[in-house]
């Protein structure tokens, strides 16, 4: 496959940024999207190092910076906006699981970073998602030290609840929910953690404190409010549903009412 790529280039956080257009050739339909990006980068590195091209006025801005790591859809590191959709045109996958067979020979593909006030750009397609860590540090845990805990089977948990907790715990923290939300809200991310722990007896003990602390931190860090457009659910690579946002709202409201 031969493709035209329009890629967002931005030298650093202060740079204004712009699109650049590149051509890539002979891409295998079985290659992943990030393998295609590797090929683009090999090409850009070579061009930047080619004296003939440089003499002709070719100004390469070097390889495109993009985040990636596990390349199997679980670490949550990859984060591209592809043709206007987080993680590209397929559903329920991360960018690293997107394969080139989803595109056609001759296509033009636009590639951008997550765009949200909560995720400042570091370089090109790489953003800073440290805000997610901060939200979880505000209360996304159960307060137990290592050791001195009861036997794992001491407290039975209904299978349905454990399964539902697992549904929410599948969040990979990629940030697609924020990136796709017109309000830049992190509600689905926060809800996934709050809901997952609220469903378990171990997590109930401090459920109220957790919901309040995490929501307060989310607001403090400049994430927007939820207006129920459900775009987050649509783009979540792990299909985490807005029913968890409903549970977060219940947890939050009942906690506030008790204040």
């Amino acid at each position, binding site marked *: 496959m031969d493709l035209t790529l329009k890629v967002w280039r931005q030298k650093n956080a202060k740079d204004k940024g712009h699109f650049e257009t590149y051509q890539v050739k002979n891409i295998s339909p079985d290659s992943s999207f990030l393998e295609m990006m590797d090929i683009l980068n090999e090409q850009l590195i070579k061009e930047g190092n080619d004296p003939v091209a440089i003499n002709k006025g070719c100004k390469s801005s070097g390889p495109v910076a993009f985040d990636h790591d*596990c390349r199997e859809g679980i670490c949550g590191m990859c984060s591209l906006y592809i043709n206007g959709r987080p993680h590209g045109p397929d559903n329920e996958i991360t960018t690293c*699981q997107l394969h080139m067979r989803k595109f056609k020979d001759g296509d033009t593909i636009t590639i951008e970073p997550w765009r949200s006030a909560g995720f400042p750009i570091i370089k090109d397609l790489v953003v800073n998602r440290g805000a997610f860590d901060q939200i979880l540090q505000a209360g996304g845990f*159960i307060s137990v030290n290592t050791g001195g805990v009861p036997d794992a089977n001491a407290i039975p948990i209904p299978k349905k609840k454990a399964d539902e907790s697992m549904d929410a715990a599948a969040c*990979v923290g990629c940030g697609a929910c924020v990136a796709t939300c017109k309000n830049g809200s992190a509600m689905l991310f926060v809800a996934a953690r709050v809901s997952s722990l609220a469903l378990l007896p171990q997590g109930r003990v401090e459920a109220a404190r957790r919901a309040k602390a995490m929501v307060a931190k989310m607001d403090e860090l400049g994430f927007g409010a939820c207006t129920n457009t459900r775009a987050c659910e649509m783009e979540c690579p792990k299909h985490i549903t807005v029913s968890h946002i409903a549970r977060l709202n219940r947890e939050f409201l009942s906690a506030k009412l008790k204040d």
Partner: protein
Amino acid sequence: MAEKLISKIPEGPLAEKWTNHKAHIRVVSPANKRKLEIIVVGTGLGGASAAATLGELGYNVKVFCISDSPRRAHSIAAQGGINAAKNYQNDNDSVYRLFYDTIKGGDYRSREANVYRLAEVSNLIIDQCVAQGVPFARDYGGLLDNRSFGGAQVSRTFYARGQTGQQLLLGAYASLNRAISKGQVKSYPRHEMLDLVMINGEAKGIIARNLVTGEIERHGAHAVVLATGGYGNVFFLSTNAMNSNGSAAWQCYKKGAFFGNPCFAQIHPTCIPVHGDQQSKLTLMSESLRNDGRIWVPKKKEDVEKLRKKQIKASQIPEEDRDYYLERRYPAFGNLVPRDVASRAAKERCDAGFGVNETGLAVFLDFKTAIERLGKDVITARYGNLFQMYEKITDVNPYEEPMMIYPAIHYTMGGLWVDYNLQTTIPGLYAIGEANFSDHGGNRLGASALMQGLADGYFILPYTIGDYLAGKIQVPKTDINDPAFDEAEKKVRERINRLFSIKGKETVDSFHKRLGHIMWEYVGMARNEAGLKKAITEIRELREEFWKNVYVPGEENEFNQEIEKALRVADFMEMGELMALDALNRFESCGGHFREEMQTEDGETKRDDENYMYVSAWEYKQGAEPELHKEPLKYEFIKVATRNYKD
């Protein structure tokens, strides 16, 4: 130098060693813990659990990771499960049985005392994780469910769908977040350790590069804990994450920490086969699939030909024409033989011409029988996300056609040599999880990496490091202006500058790929003397070429992924050579290390216990061949036998 290899294994009966040891090692009082600083490098299961626990205990902890968040560490990708000797299934499991299976699975090349301790603390891990809110799979009665993994005849594996590693890591990460919020731990994401700093022979800090700004930073401490994972990416194509690397451990090796059993690398039998030259990494299909999946190739060559030409589908080949070769060769364990055995058996069939895809390097993993027996819904509940992952990558629906799989590099049992306290040969430097060599011998059993990472981080290191730090309570904070820091920083800067200044013609990745080809060809699933010697020569040539002809674009003081990779690949080129050297020295086959010269008539591994029942611990020598030290392995409590999975 032999006195450096003191394993510090406690005396006494096996089952009492850890208890006695704990009772006799020193502890640090809460008031003194507040005065002590510890650096933890890496935030996978080992690093995150250690940093959180040490923080809770009251030490001042700094934790470093190369990703944008501690949660990205590659432990997150572990799929199948975690072993523990809970015996919840009443199938006669016990600490002893888990210990025995692990020693046997490792082909009698690990320490009895370490492995017993691992089995002993395994149960505490499950309790801890449940208390943290890890949503393990449960039965309708509300109690925890289990499944089976390779090398075991009991069901002792706890799991959270096909993403157990993720859930355990999120548990440890949550504890870490709690410790960070309380100010007990300070987190440094997007930081890479580039050197270890030693003062008077003790580990006292690190030099790290801020990956966002490119700044070189100095961090001091009273002790350093390395939890940086394995070095499987030497092979370029592996199931490791793209950024997983062995550089931090390698710098410690070059500062004097011995490297244990470098040639012991695990090749996982069930990975998605290579699709072509553009491939950047390999994807694992969990071992748990072998609970219900059956592995086969056709019996007839003509069926193989038709499959390769896509004239027939696998599902059209009748039952009697299928060779379920694992069930045929290993009736007692069947499809659940350990990974090294399953990998070699796949290679044997493919070498014999029965590989089922165009490249001839694939076998089938089939769920037909299980779907008929249990129904599609049960299979979806058990493996749904894995089936989805497979379909996304290959565009084939595994409910209808069998999966195609082939072995790939997955894990490294070798790592920094550590004593029973998990301390390396450098005082004050500890190594935990995959970064050390200690518990898996020649082959790690499935669902045991998660167990080891968390055992080390939650329950072992936090005790044993106290024994060392108890002697440091009067020692002031490390001065980062000490000449040792100047020296280490200068070397790091020189190395970075040198890489930029080469301005050669080839990219970093192209060298990494070439290294990977050499490693897979000669230091992969089957090794022999001529091949290993050839590998050493070729790696040396490649390394020389790298330092003359690599091109690293961009600047030092910026976010620059190419310089990150260049530094790592430069180290991989040295690690690859040590792996080959160790494999050449070990003239026996054991676990994942298969020397073609040493095999039985039916192609099984042939150990040489008389000459090789030792841990090889390599010492770095500047400008010379590394020196081999041997730690003899003594089996006092179990009878060493030939591994048998047939009956």
